[in-house]
Every structure is written in C-alpha cells, then in structure tokens.
C-alpha cells in the first residue's frame, strides 16, 4: 500500500477499488465470488476451517481465476451461521460445516446446482429460500452503520476504499470548515448510539467552543451490555468506517489525536482494528499532513481490562489514564475537561460508523429516515428466545413487532412471547401491550425502558421475570465500581431482597423496600450505572407485579425457574423403576429399588438441576 499524497490520488484510488470490488461482487467476466463470514460468532463455529478449505479446494481444482473467496465480517443472522454466500447469484448457504465444503465445490460451484439442504428455512412458512435478499430477516433492514460489514474483507484497505471508504474524509478535509461539519451532523439529528442518546453535533459543539491547545476524540468500544455485540461486528467487519468517523469528528471540533478503547474480551475486533489503523497509516490517511492538506491526526488503541463500568465515559477516561475505572462527577463534562484534563468527546462505535454516511449524503437526507426525535437507523442485537438471533439494522420508528416477528421470525418452539428487554442492565422490559411501539429514544423511555446500546433480548413464558431482575442486579453488583454508597451498598441490598423473594422468604414489606431502594439508587448515584441499576426491577415490577406476588404470597414461581420454589417429583404411577434417573443424579438423592419400588427424590438433598428429568425416557418426572 503506497502513501496517498493528495485528494486527487485518493479519488483515483477510490475509483479503481470501487470498480474492482463491484466487479468482484457482480461476477464480472464470469468470475464468481464466495464470501465466508468471519465474525466472532461464526469463527467459534468453525468458519475459519470452512474458509481455509474453500481456498484449498479452489487451488486444488484450479479454479482460482474463476472463483475468488473472501472472509468478510458478519452476515448478521448469527443463529444460522456459518454462512457461505455465492455471488453474483446471491445464493446464501447457512449452518455450513467444514464437511459441506466438498459438496459446495463440486455440486455448487462446478456443478452450478443449488444445494437445497444448506438453504435457509423460513421458520414460519417452512419454505427454503435461495437468495439472501429474499429472506425476511434482511428485507426490513437498512444498512448504514453496518455498511460493508458483510461484503468486504476487513483486513484489506482496498476493499474498504471500494466500499465508499474515505470519500467523506476527503470531502471534509478539502471542502468543509470544521463548523460546517458540526452543522451537518446537527442537521442530521444524530443521537449517541451508545445509549445516552445525546445529540452528537451538540457534544462536538461544546468541545469546539473551548479554546485549548490539545483536544481528544475517544471512541467507546467497551460494549459491555451482556447480549450486545453490535460494535463488535462493526469493528470486525468494517473498522475503516469507524476510524474515518473518528477522524472527521476530530476535524470538526479540533482534536488531533484519537483513542480507541475496546474491551479486551473482543480480541478479534482488536486485531482487525489494529490492522486497519496500520493500513491507514501506511496509506497516509493517519499521521501528518493527511492527503497533503496539512491536517494531522494520530490514532491510538487501548484495550479495556474487564470492567463494565468503563463503558461510562468518565470511567473510560480514567481507565485510559491508567487508573481504576471509577467515574468522575460531572460537571465538568468531558467536552470541557476530559482526557488528561483536555476537552474530549467520547463517541460510541456505532455513532462514528454513521458519520461517513452523513457527510456523503448530507444531514438533511439522513434525517429523512426515522422519527421526529430519533433520526437514522439503529443496530440491534436480537437475542434470547427468538428464531433469528443476530444483528439487525432498522430505521428508527420500526415497531417491536416487526423486529421480533418479521425480522426475528417469532418465538421458537411455539412458546408464548412474554417480554423483550432493551437497554441491558440499565433498561427495562416491554411487553405484549408495547409491541406496536415505534422504536425511538423517547418512546422507549416513556414505556419504562430505554434504547441502550442496542441489545434486545426476547423472553418467553419459560422465563421468570423476578429471576431476570435478580440476574441483572447480580451483574450490577459485580460490576459496580464501589465509589458511591447508593450504588455500592444500595444495589447489594436490592440483590439481597430479590434473593429473599426467589427463595420464598419475601413479604409485601420486601416489595416496599425494593421500591424505596430503587428510588434511592436512581436519585443518589454518581453515574448512570447506579442511576439506571434499578430499571429492570422497576420495569418488571410494573409489568409483572402478579409474578412477584406469586413468589411472595403463594411461594410459587409461575415459570418454574426459581429452584427454591419448585420441585422435581417422580410420579410413582408412571415410574418404570429403571433407575436411570438415580444413576444420573449428581448428588445421589434418588432412591428406589430397580424393577420393584418406584424411585423417590429426597427433596432435602435435591439441588434442582433437572438432570433426572432430562434422563427419564418415560416422562415420569414432573417439574412443578
């Protein structure tokens, strides 16, 4: 990669690469392209051996000049991966195994046939779908932040250049003043995608207004919400777009240095980002006198070290400064006094991934998508009890019903939908009555939840909402930094009360105390972690109060989740006395006589693991 010395050279390079990439994806000259997904999820499912095998086979069958193979970022429909896509036909093979590669090569590539058993099966209609663009999961999506994530090789800068890469940076550096960039972002109405929802343009304006010799732009890649992997996919699929967004941000408010802060739990994302930065440096897109315009910008990468609270912007800054990740009181806000005391803007990965697009099409056009208060698109990580678990990007204003049913394919196993949790441990759950809510920062808050970073977990009738609340509080207790008393002690007390409830020791007073503590942690805590810690409790209590009452008054868990309130029981009439359950029991609490006496579980020793029920072939064991 040679250094690109001026805007004209960049234009030239972009034109070349765009043509090359388009030709590849369009199958120009009869050459087909195979794309294999390489996101963390699919890598865990053997997508690397699949890629390697395909490459081997192409070589062995002398097909290298007729077929190319690329490892791309993420196809998004993660529960169906690993994926192998054939272009230009747009044939998508799902749940591929390394052992399928031979067939794909022989029948699919050489034989020109479609391999039916590797196609996507629509869970609602039962139909097999050949083309990716026909799959309902993809139909309602609109890729902006995820642009390029499923089409380019994230390790090759040329492919990024071919996918609208750096066009926005070029435009900004040669034809826009910093204030004009801010104005464009203000016009777009872009709000922070990390969860705070603060208007991005306004944040940059605060920092721009401060007169200081040194300013910083920090990208928050500490995606800690359990169940969220949007930022991970963007960094793994098209890291260049995010770095470009960071540079434009720096230009806008006067930062000449940017810091990426990515969680250490994302080694693949870190590696690909490091590679992208190195490539951009070689190309002269990072460093001194970028594109010969005289503008300097340097990029550094720091990894997190396993602390959810470091997703909070001031805790993140403290972490970069080599300290414990404890938040700072605000004011002063980071835009005034941030990293090492300098004006700093902390922006989420997804926010920065949108910037290039905003500059290319203009803020006004960006604002044409979405709702009045929430413009543009949002990436969600749809997970839990839903058929199509994966990454989706939809325009703001899409309803939850569309998200769960049209895109998500509904609830598996014929189970009943119960709730969808958005905003992770800081959010709340939305229920049947909220399904037609258009997704928007403010409507979600009005309904007792929040947008959060984009994690959306679907729950069904088999989930206990009290248990879910307790799960989130356990997480918060673990991740609380410990600085302020309402969060450090208050969340612990909430967890202890929830434990009492799920263990059958709760009373009405327990619920009153929970409400009181929820109010205290919300009002008194220093940072958003503590302030939102009680949201899952408040939300589940508001929507599922009857479930709480069942635990307290009836000492029963309606979803049969809370172990202390349930029991495993062998129906003596149905028991075949085969002793299979007794042999499987890890604590040896089932006694009987094989062939003669029915088996009985000693409830005092039973740890409610359910192994016995899983072992019994005769359905004699009941969980009640």
């Amino acid at each position, binding site marked *: 990669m040679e250094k690109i010395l001026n805007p004209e050279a960049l234009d030239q390079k972009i034109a070349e690469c765009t043509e090359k990439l388009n030709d590849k994806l369009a199958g120009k000259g009869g050459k087909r392209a195979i794309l294999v997904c390489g996101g963390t999820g699919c890598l865990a499912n053997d997508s690397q051996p699949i890629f390697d095998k395909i490459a081997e086979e192409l070589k062995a069958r002398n097909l290298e000049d007729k077929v190319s193979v690329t490892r791309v970022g993420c196809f998004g429909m993660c529960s169906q991966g690993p994926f192998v896509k054939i272009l230009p036909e747009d044939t998508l093979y799902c749940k591929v195994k390394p052992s399928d590669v031979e067939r794909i090569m022989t029948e699919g590539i050489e034989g020109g046939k479609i391999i039916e058993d590797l196609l996507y099966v629509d869970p609602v209609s039962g139909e097999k779908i050949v083309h990716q663009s026909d799959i309902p999961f993809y139909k309602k999506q609109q890729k902006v932040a995820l642009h390029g994530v499923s089409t380019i090789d994230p390790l090759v800068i040329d492919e990024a250049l071919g996918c609208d890469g750096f066009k926005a940076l070029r435009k900004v550096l040669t034809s826009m003043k910093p204030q004009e960039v801010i104005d464009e972002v203000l016009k777009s109405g872009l709000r922070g995608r990390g969860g705070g929802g603060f208007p991005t343009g306004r944040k940059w304006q605060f920092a721009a207004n401060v007169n200081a010799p040194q300013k910083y732009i920090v990208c928050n890649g500490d995606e800690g919400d359990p169940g969220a992997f949007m930022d991970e996919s963007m960094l793994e699929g098209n890291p260049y777009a995010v770095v470009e967004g960071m540079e434009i941000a720096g230009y806008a408010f006067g930062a000449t240095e940017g810091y990426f802060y990515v969680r250490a739990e994302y080694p693949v994302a870190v590696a690909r980002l490091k590679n992208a930065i190195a490539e951009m440096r070689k190309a002269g897109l990072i460093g001194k006198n970028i594109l010969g315009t005289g503008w300097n910008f340097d990029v550094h990468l720091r990894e997190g070290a396993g602390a959810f609270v470091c997703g909070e912007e001031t805790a993140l800054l403290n972490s970069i400064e080599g300290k414990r990740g404890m938040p700072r009181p605000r004011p002063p806000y980071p835009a005034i006094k941030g990293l090492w005391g300098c004006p700093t803007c902390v922006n989420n990965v997804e926010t920065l991934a949108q910037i290039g697009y905003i500059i290319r099409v203009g803020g006004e056009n960006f604002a044409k998508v979405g709702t009045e208060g929430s413009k543009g698109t949002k990436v969600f990580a749809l997970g839990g009890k839903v058929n199509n678990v994966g990454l989706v990007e939809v325009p703001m204003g899409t309803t939850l019903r569309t998200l769960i049913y049209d895109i998500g394919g509904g609830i598996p196993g014929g189970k009943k939908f119960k709730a969808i949790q958005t905003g992770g441990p800081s959010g709340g759950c939305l229920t049947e009555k909220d399904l037609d809510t258009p997704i928007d920062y403010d409507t979600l808050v009005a309904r007792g939840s929040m947008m959060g970073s984009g994690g959306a977990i679907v729950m069904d009738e088999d989930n206990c909402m009290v248990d879910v609340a307790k799960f989130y509080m356990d997480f918060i207790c673990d991740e609380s*930094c410990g600085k302020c*008393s*309402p969060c450090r002690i*208050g969340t*612990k007390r909430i967890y202890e009360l929830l434990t009492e409830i799920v263990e059958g020791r709760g009373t009405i007073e327990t619920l009153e105390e929970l409400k009181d*503590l929820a109010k205290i942690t919300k009002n*008194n805590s220093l940072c958003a972690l503590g302030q939102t810690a009680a949201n899952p409790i408040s939300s589940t209590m508001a929507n599922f109060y009857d479930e709480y009452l069942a635990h307290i008054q009836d000492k029963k868990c309606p979803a049969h989740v809370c172990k202390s309130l349930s029991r495993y029981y062998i129906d003596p009439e149905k028991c075949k006395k085969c002793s299979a359950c007794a042999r499987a029991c890890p604590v040896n609490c089932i006694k009987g006589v094989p062939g003669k006496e029915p088996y009985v579980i000693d409830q005092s020793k039973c740890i409610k693991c359910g192994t016995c029920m899983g072992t019994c072939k005769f359905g004699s064991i009941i969980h009640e």
Partner: protein
Amino acid sequence: METININIEGRIYAVDKSMTVLEAARSVGYNIPTLCYWKGGHNSLASCRVCLVEIATARGGKLFASCVYPVADVPAEKGFVIKISSPMAVEARRASVELLLSNHNQDCQACVKNGHCELYEVASIVGARPGAFKGSKTEVHKDEIAPGIIRDSSKCILCGRCIERCKEAQGIGILGFEKRGFHTFVSPIADRSFAHVPCIQCGQCVNVCPTGALSEKREITCIDKAKAEGKFVVVQTAPAVRAALAEEFGYKIGELNATGKMVAALHRLGFDRVFDTNFAADLTIMEESQELVNRISKGGVLPQITSCSPGWINYLEYYYPQCIPNVSTCKSPHEMEGAIIKSYFAKAHNLDPKNIYVVSVMPCTAKKYEAKRPQNAAVEGLPDVDAVITTRELAAMIKRAGIMFRDLPEEEFDQDLLGQYTGAAPIFGVTGGVMEAALRTAYHTLTGKEFGPIDFKACRGLDAVKEAEVEINGLKVKVAIASGMKNAKVLLDQIKEGKSPYHFIEIMGCPGGCINGGGQPFVKPNLKPEEGLDILDTYRQKRADILYSIDEKCAIRQSHNNPDIIKVYKDFLGEPCSELSEELLHTTYVANREKYPEIKK
C-alpha cells in the same frame, strides 16, 4: 471577584461566581452536611452522596452533589432554584447516610472516635433511622501490627481522604482502594500492615479520617499497668502538645497556651514527676550544634540534616539510605530526655533505672515506633522511653479522671534537675524552629557572641522549602528548611546528585512541623463549623503563634544559657559530643531497611 445571583429556597444571594454550590451555600449560612468533602473540594470525589441538594427548574428537580456543582451553572436568572430542604433532598441525604450505616461497625460507644466521629455527627443531622437497609456487610480488614497506626475497615466509609493525604503531604501514597464494588476496601498494597510497607507512620492519614477506621495505637493501658506494678512513672511533654491540647476541651484553635493547665492536669494524674521535653530540646541543640561545628571545621559530611522527626527518619531509611551519613546522630529530644532520666536523674535520686517508666506525650504517631527501636535503649538496654501517648490520648486520660480542665490553675513543671528550658525549645514544634534554635547556639559557639536579631524570620513560614543565609566568622552558612516529605525530597535529591549548596538542613515529617503532627487534636470543619470556613488554611499558623509567643516571653532564649543544661554538662556529660554524650544521646540508623519484608505466616 465576579459575582452571580443564585436562588436558595426562594431567596436570592449574590455569591462568588467561582464557587461550588456547597461553598456558596456555606458562605451565606447554609452548612449543607457533608462527609467525604475535604479542603475545598481538592479531594472531593463526590462519592459519599451526603451533600446532595435538589436543583429545580420549571421542568422538575434533580439531585446533585453540591460539593462539586459550580454555581456558575445555576444562575437565578435562568430559573434555577437550589432546594436544600425539599423532601426529595432531605430523604436523599438521609438515605445515603443510612446505606453507609447499614454497612458500618455498630459499636459506636466503644469506638476510639466516640465524640469525634463525622459519620456519627452527620447521622444525627440527617435524622438517620435505626436499622434501615439491614443486610450483609463487607469483609473486614484489620491491621493492628504497626506501633503507630492501626486500621479497621469495618469503620471505613471509603471517602478516600487518607489516600489523597498521603500523596499530598508526603508524596508517597501508601494507601489505595483495593478490589471493586461491595468488596472495595482501603489498605496498603496487598492488604499488608503499615509495618510491612514503606510507611513513615506520620499519621497524616489518621488526622483526616472522618471515622475510627484509622487511628493511633493507644498506650494508655500500658501506663496504667506500669503504675499498678509500682514503677516510678515520669511524664514529659513535647512543645507542640501545649499549643493544641486546649482544643480538646472546648477552646478555639490558637486561643489558649495550655502549658500551665496541662502541667496541672498531669500533676493530678498521679505521675511521679512531670517534666518538659523542652529541656531535652535544649540538650539536642547543644549536641547538634557541636556536631555541625565539628563537621564544618573538620571537613565532615555536609549538609548536616536534623534528626528529631522519626517520620522523617523512617523516610530516610526507606527512600534515601544514601543520605544517612548526612543525618545528625542526635536522638530526638524525648529519647534524649528518657536516657538522661534513666541515668543522670536516676543516679541523683538513687533509683534503679529498671523501675523507672518514662512516658512521652507527643503530637506524633511515629514516635510510638521510634520508642521501640533497639537503637534507642541507652541505659542497661532499657528503652529510653517506655510509652508514647498522643495529645489526643492525654486528653482522654484527663477526661477519664474527671479532671475539669477549664477550672485548672496554672502550674509549673517539676524543677528537679530537668525543669528548665529556654525559648529556643518550644519553637521545636514548628517548621523552622529547630533551625532557629540551632543557629542561636552554633553562632555563639563559633563567635562567642549572641545571635541577633533573635527572631530569624527567614526560617519562619509553613509551606514549601525555605532557605536562609547566616554569616558566621566570614563563612556564609547556607541553611534550608523543609517539612513534609514532598518538600524534603527536593533537598534530598540535590544531596543525592551531589549538588546541595547547604551546610545545614532541617527536615520535619509533617507539613508545618509538629503542630500538625499525626497525634494532634482533629481539625474537622464539619464537626466544628464555628471555627470558620477557612480553618484548614489557618489552624497551623494559630498553633505556631502560641509557640512563638512562648519563646518571646522566655527570659532566656538560647539553649546554651539554660542553667540546668550547663549543670548537666558540668556534673555529668562533660561536654557536647563527649563519649558519654555519644553513648546516651546519640543513635544509629538502618542502612538496608526492607520496604516489603517477607511476612512469616
């Protein structure tokens, strides 16, 4: 000063625009309760959430920590109303305290901080309810190994003041927050004892602790035991004690020179002799000036550094062992006095030194460690000083005996060979005081004339590094003074690099000198708002002024003119730095002191 109008509870006030809501409210009469707040917000992490106030606009109210919130952000003109007594604010402050109490040691009656505890005070102010938010408690970490300072995490509220203070006063940083969340606690590295890390035991951390989490190790019962065993118990008091003791009995800081009442109290506590460490301060001057004169005339190691502060000596041994040759071999005054009591005094009264128990009342926690050093046991291997109690412990003893301090008459120290002192002695308690005292005598030794003008103002002043120059017999003697190790480090680094321009340096462990020692009465603006908002900036000077005034009022102001000193040399020691003096009054230092010794289980 630019002002801004703020609205507190519906009333408009014009306040300094650069202030925080807390400072502004206090300046107009609202003492918003605080807990972790210290020194103008320098340390304020806004972590205790006790100083919450409601700031309301037309859109509703939200709670903010007033200790960090700038008034500039809430002008009355923009419709901001600061509500301190709204139900939301009142309940919030109460809840913050109740949560802290729910995770706190409940044994207040028996706690060493009973009567001086900021959490106790604040709990009363906010109306904490009994048994609110009961639940589990964080694991307890205790350390009672070090002789000077002990800690108990069950009493800690994680305010972080001690962590900052060690860095701010000494530039060391022995303490830190460890672990995370509910398990967070404050300790030296790896939860080691203060005795097993390079802590200088100065006690600055103890002074700032709002609760009983950090305190000195008490030795009052040791004194009781010695009395019960029928020992001859002698007590001596450091100069800085008298400058602050009255504060423990309701007097304002700097209000009373407590010397007379202190002696009267000690007379009523059943001690066999009540002496003044000031006598030994004069003795120290005799020995140290002679040492300096010897070094200057015989080409010894210069600069010479004073050695009366054990906090400084700990720092020397841990961090600058290469400077040991510079340090005077003189023991600190109370150790000298102990040695003299067990030899000179014992002989004169036909007492067996084994039966003498010497108690030092000191403003210092490091001296508790110093008294136990094997290098400070000159007479028959017996420790020169047997027990060291702090000013605070003396106050506790006086209260325990029911003595009504305010009603005491002025009494004098026992005039029994060791009673007299000169004005050069009391100023030992302030930074620069030892230097002034030493120069008065060194000048006389070298020129035969008295040093004048006697008040050497260049040595006075509480902060930073001071330097001065005295011309003695044509030689320009350069001196420097530093208190607090952060300042001392500057001078020590010069010596390390061979670039020190001085002949004589005075170093004291605590910033400002002994008047600000780790054993002095607590200065807590939160507990005593009547002292004024700026008391943390003025208390040291107020205490120092008492000592300077004692010096001024003394008939004799030079150590070498003290009749008891002249007598002890004539009748016993011979001359300064004689063989006997070396044996009794001088000590040695440890050149290879381990910072992190291996701990045997």
